[in-house]
């Protein structure tokens, strides 16, 4: 059985009961607030500082040598909760010195920004570190078609990110100098 405790409040003094001193204090507070530094951001001219781990528009990045990193493994397409990603896989044609050993690359890569929920699963699942949710946050268009980012647009948005792994370069080195008998 819960016990109800009635707290005894201190009776108000006469000046407190007129509320006038309190109102004056309040007026002082609001007045001093007028001279504080303004927090408004003049948006289109001033852009907010995007935190490092911000999840903006998903983009495709290239490695520092300008080669595409995506190998169209379609794990992002699989993991994407709203099914916003659509990949048409393709193969790297033989004869491209730089990356023919990678064998596979997307023919087309589409992310429907009307479906995307910016959850970042695609970035998390990517085994090649090719897809990143970067600091781009304003995505707009006049038609539904415009809101579907194709491969070209995704690479344009993504740019190049530093890559310390060079997984496929290591593979190529192994191929050229690897164990042979």
């Amino acid at each position, binding site marked *: 059985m819960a016990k109800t405790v009635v707290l005894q409040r201190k009776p108000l003094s006469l000046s407190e009961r007129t509320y006038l001193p309190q109102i004056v204090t*309040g*007026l002082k*507070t*609001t*007045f001093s*607030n*007028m001279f504080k530094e303004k*927090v*408004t951001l003049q948006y289109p001219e001033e852009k907010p500082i995007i935190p490092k781990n911000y999840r903006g528009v998903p983009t495709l990045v290239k490695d520092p040598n300008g080669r595409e990193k995506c190998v169209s493994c379609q794990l992002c397409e699989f993991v994407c909760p709203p099914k916003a990603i659509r990949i048409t896989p393709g193969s790297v044609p033989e004869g491209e010195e730089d990356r023919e050993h990678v064998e596979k690359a997307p023919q087309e890569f589409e992310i429907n920004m009307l479906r995307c929920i910016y959850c970042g699963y695609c970035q998390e699942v990517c085994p090649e570190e090719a897809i990143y949710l970067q600091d781009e946050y304003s995505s707009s268009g006049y038609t539904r078609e415009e809101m579907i980012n194709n491969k070209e647009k995704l690479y344009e948005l993504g740019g190049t990110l530093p890559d310390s792994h060079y997984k496929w370069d290591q593979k190529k080195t192994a191929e050229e100098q690897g164990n042979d008998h």
Partner: protein
Amino acid sequence: MFDFDMLLMVGLKFLFALLMIGAVMTMAGYSVLAERKVSAWMQGRVGPNRTVLPFIVHIPFVGKFLKGLGMFQPLADGLKFLFKEEMIPGHVNKLYYNLAPIVALVPALTTMTVLPFGEFFAEDGRTIPLMLANLEVGILFVLAVSSLGVYGIVLAGWSSNSKYPFLGGIRSSAQMISYELAMGLSLLPIFLWVSEPGTGAMGLSLVDIVNSQNDRAWLLLVQPLSALIFLIALFAETNRLPFDMPESETDLVGGFHTEYGGFKFGIFFVAEYAHIVVGSAIFTVIFLGGWHFLPWIADPWPATWVGTLLGIGWFLAKTIFLIFFFIWVRWTIPRFRYDQVMNLGWTKLLPLALLNLIFYVLLVTWLDQPTA
């Protein structure tokens, strides 16, 4: 046959009236801007600073400064109201629905006819007060007409045929009646004091009240309690926070103007701010010495047209401060509950005003007894 002087006077009065309307409406418009700007500052924001007229923006410094202050915002707001689609909901009583905004605006503009805002020094040494109509019963006129403003709100609330405006209208009428009494009672001691023998002032003329404060203490200092009661009642009469029961957007959506939009809503909006402007002016006239300089100090300006202009400017400065005070209070005190408003009006302010009256009756009687 023609009395040219008469014609001239009518023409002049007409021009005057137009000027006054222009001035009050402009002030109302800029009060809206002030409201937005001051609100923004008090909340750590910057407020409207985007609107600008072409050409003016190119004037170095000034253009930028005016833009930053949002000086052209009222123009944009007004135009927006003008160009918005006039929607009339299907369920309203059309006649009263259309009438209500006009009924709300007219009293606000009418009260200013008896409002003195300066004095003109004629060549023959006479001083002529600047006002449209120098009524002997000026203050009664103000009280009578300004309380007509409630009809606009009640009409709007009733004709909208919808629950929130209806509640807003009812609250408004109840609130007006409650505070009208305290307001009137708070002014009575003023007239007792002003009509005191030796001052030469008689009657209820606002000009006399102003002039009684020249070179002497302002009535605010003489009768602070009257001023406080009048000020509180003024807040209630103009539906300002903490008494904005008729609107109270948190519980009544938009109150009496929920069903209004476009220019009709704009008129309500302007009427509300016109009330504030006129209310501030009246408070300045009665308690802050009108166009006269500071308490106990004679007007430092010469008795020429320069003095007239400086007087008017001084008057405006006081009024603008009061308008600022209105906004200031808005962001300081939260809205009362409806029952608290009623409670304050009937059980606190009314007895207080009566006591105040009795005190001054006794005081004036004691002061007035012939020195034996």
